[in-house]
């Protein structure tokens, strides 16, 4: 494997995807811990019912986050920020 191949391999890796994949991994780990506690240690049916509501909400929110992530164009993000010129309306009487 040449140096160019390695360079090409690394350039094809989407850093933002890895970053958000890491965030979502933490998220699902946390979701599991909450559901585990509610189902394992909860007394009566109420905690189990809340665990189901929580899971449903977590799935819906995760799907929404995934959908919004797919819509973001990260390559143009820095370009958009660079082209931003704030409009300063400073009254001339201040000078």
């Amino acid at each position, binding site marked *: 494997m040449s140096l160019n191949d390695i360079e090409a391999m690394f350039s094809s890796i989407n850093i933002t995807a890895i970053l958000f994949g890491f965030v979502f991994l933490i998220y699902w780990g946390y979701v599991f811990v909450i559901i585990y506690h509610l189902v394992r240690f909860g007394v*009566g049916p109420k905690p189990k019912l809340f665990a189901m509501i929580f899971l449903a909400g977590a799935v819906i929110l995760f799907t929404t986050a995934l*959908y919004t992530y797919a819509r973001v164009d990260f390559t143009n993000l820095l370009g958009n920020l660079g082209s931003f010129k704030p409009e300063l309306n400073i009254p001339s009487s201040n000078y």
Partner: protein
Amino acid sequence: MFSFLTKSKYSFEGIKPYEKVVILLYRHWFIIFIGILGYIFLALIPPLVYIFFSVQIGNIGLTQIFDFLTAIYYLFWWLGLFYTITMYLLDTWVVTDHRVLDNEQHGFFNRTLSEMHLSRIQDMSVGVRGVIPTFLNYGNLEIQTAGTEPKFIFKQIPDPASVKNLINETFNRYVEAHKDNVEVHELGRQP
């Protein structure tokens, strides 16, 4: 599949076959209400940011990234909300016709479970302190055990005086049914 929702109204780990739950207590609803109210305010932040800065966000072309960051914000908002609800639901006090159980959750993987036999109850006292607890009728119920063991405290429970009376009645019934403090339900099981 969903039988665990209806199988037993007050089922919990370690319940004995002959044991009946008299009452299951959570902290007063006002305690969780305060926590949820905080999360409701936090949920209003992204819409407010959008209302006040929608023109600027649109001008820079960051609408999509704003939507994405809002979705991420709500992901973690949901976790925080249910962390609070989980801690509330796992702080329970159970009075059965044989014993009193205190389950306290101090965070994830940090749990205290103590139990006390009804026969060990020596004295009970109710403490309602503060303006809101007095209006809403919630407070602490302290149970003094025999010996030098620490007190059993039911924290911020609704109507602690009624719970005290209920435990008294349960205690009296237990004493009547268990002469000389002998567990009649386990006599046949012993060798």
